């Protein structure tokens, strides 16, 4: 084993195929997008080099600015709305309660469903004419609303399924982290008279800080680059009210046929994701723990 680990060539052989795939599928497209973002181009005709003009125009584009604002709201809402319930479920489930496996599976089911399925499901729930939500409200004597057609409601309505869907995902990550904490620590705490709440806040959470960091990175980056559910539910409408950068990028490229400005949005999303990745890295300085 040590012989292999000491062999630089072995590293190369094992890493090379993955590296090639990664380089071709991920890195080259980013580079090409960077190149396209400096062009004024309709996808088929003449390419005109315009430098950073596409980026400067984005800053003046109201739809783009509000889409960035929406994605930041979603990132914040995801961290609060996903990680807190996920942490709660993970701590409860990891306490060896009865039916642990069943609950774990139930909470994880939304993650397994295809986003399009969830989108269609919520389209039916939210429908203003025959939706389940309005039917319920009317039974309670309240007025139904056009959830996905009202510019004031659409953001909350379309973010809800997005946040709901991934609670189970983060729960599983955190649950795995908690399961890695040795039982002796809890036993020692119990002998010292700590209650469940104290153990959760003073033992579990500090010890799984690195797992929380992973979850947080996924929640934030996932929100910033979100496309699918918004596309199925609203396509960014009405009046750009639920627009996020990636839906705007899609319509800019494929409806407006402005490849340059669409690629500029793509490059912006990549940079934005990297920025937030570094911020989270800085925020969560984690010491390597050994139990």
């Amino acid at each position, binding site marked *: 084993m040590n012989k292999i680990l000491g062999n630089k060539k072995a590293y190369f052989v094992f890493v090379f195929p993955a590296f090639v795939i990664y380089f071709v599928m991920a890195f080259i497209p980013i580079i*090409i997008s960077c190149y396209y973002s400096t062009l004024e181009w309709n996808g*088929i005709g003449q390419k005109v080099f315009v430098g950073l003009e596409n980026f400067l125009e984005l800053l003046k584009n109201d739809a783009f600015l509000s889409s960035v604002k929406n994605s930041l709201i979603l990132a914040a809402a995801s961290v609060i709305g996903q990680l807190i319930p996920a942490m709660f479920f993970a701590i409860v489930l990891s306490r060896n309660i009865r039916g642990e496996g069943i609950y774990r599976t139930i909470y994880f089911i939304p993650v397994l469903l295809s986003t399009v399925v969830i989108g269609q499901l919520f389209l039916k729930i939210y429908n203003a*004419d025959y939706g389940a939500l309005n039917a319920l409200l009317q039974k309670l004597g309240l007025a139904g609303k056009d959830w996905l057609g009202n510019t004031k409601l659409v953001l909350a309505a379309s973010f809800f399924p997005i946040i709901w869907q991934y609670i189970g995902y983060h729960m599983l990550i955190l649950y795995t982290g908690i399961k890695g904490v040795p039982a002796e620590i809890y036993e020692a705490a119990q002998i010292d008279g700590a209650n469940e709440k104290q153990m959760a806040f003073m033992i579990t959470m500090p010890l799984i800080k690195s797992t929380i960091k992973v979850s947080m990175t996924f929640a934030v980056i996932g929100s910033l*680059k979100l496309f699918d559910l918004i596309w199925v539910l*609203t*396509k960014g*409408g009405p009046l750009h009210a639920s627009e996020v950068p990636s839906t705007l990028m899609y319509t800019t490229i494929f409806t407006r046929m402005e490849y340059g400005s669409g690629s500029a949005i793509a490059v912006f999303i990549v940079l934005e*994701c990297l920025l937030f990745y570094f911020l989270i890295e800085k925020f969560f300085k984690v010491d390597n723990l050994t139990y």
Partner: protein
Amino acid sequence: MKRAVLKKMTGLLMSAVLAASLAGCGGAQGSGEISAEESTVQEGSPAVEDNTGTENAAESEAVDTADGETITITLWSQFSDPNSTDGNYVAFYNALESIKTDMPNVNVVHEGTESESYKVKLKTAMAGNELPDVFFNWGAGTMAPYVEAGLVLAMDDYITDEVSSRILGGTLDNFTFDGKMYGYPYSVAVASLYVNTELFEQNNVKIPETYDEFLEAVDAFKAAGITPISLGEKDLWPGLMIFGIHAIRMAGAEDFNAALMGEGSYNTPELIEAAKYVQDLAARGGFGESAMGTSEDDAVAAFKQGRAAMMFMGSWLNGDCEADDAAVKGKISVIKFPVIEGGKGTKDEFHGGSGETFLVSSSTEHPAEAAAVAQYICEKMSKDQYLAGSGMPAWEADMGDTSELNRLSQEIANLTKDATGYVYWLDSLTGGSAADTLMNEIANLIAGTVTPEEFCANLQELNE
């Protein structure tokens, strides 16, 4: 230390991968270019099958016969479902079947892709220079960039006087650029006001002949709790039709066409007035409570189920209204959209026209055969899609027994007998970013977030 750097790098790469999935379309472009090189390498090979997918290859037998005379023509369309009951689909698959016997020396390999994906697929193929020999496309502004880039073949060298004499007048406008004709027409689709006569009778409302009566009907249905006009504004394009017909009635087809083509102005008193009418119609609840969140499918379903009294839509709605599962079967009538008093438009100016066609790629190896295939399919479809109740024919033909013809199609044929002018669908006419701007501005107009004056000024920026 080294290890820490490595760790950081790994983390960086990991997050870049997450972000990279977004750059997917950039990637598609990239791969398109790579394959473009491949296809130039393969140029000169006898069959161009490598350009076609395998999905519908079953349509054709014996792609590579030893018979040197059989030529393979690749064909892409948005007609993806052979079992669809949509009139255009039925007509297209009829033509695809009969071309086997009518043009035995040509082997047509068809690949159908659903409409939205088709548009993306076509654009990707164009960027990569991987076009099939013949492909379905929309005319006017949607087609203009392809013509400018020299990607499509002009038909003038392949059309004979005998053939052109059979094409009905005015149907080529959207396929003609700088005096050159690039595509044959196959249908004339017209928008008219679909009214649910049963709901009108039940609520004692007169079927409108003037715009005032139209507004009275809207108010009456609103008071009765019935959606007056079914509109799927979530999809944006249905709003174009509402504004389109108001603009035609106020400004007249000629002036409105000029504004759309960049030769006139949007900032005219007539168009501002038209925008006011649309905004007023929305404000008084003409489109129901939830038009902004309703998709076109839902809007059509609501009308089909008799939950909405009117719908302003293209003639492709005929099939839905007369379908066996429609609650409104036999109760729908089509009328001309009422004239607006003080407007320059007449009742005989229509929204719609001929704008769908099959184009021939300029890089095809068999231009004459490809042009013949495009012509054959268009002429054949013209008759069959009319008989299937989809649109008006674009070619002269003996229609034979029309007693089985969709009732609404016959009514529309009657309405448009004396048509004096057409304005084609605004999105296809303008194309690309102009179409997107129009759709978003009209959504703003309907939602009441811009004034009619601002609306026209914003549109005028497209022309400056």
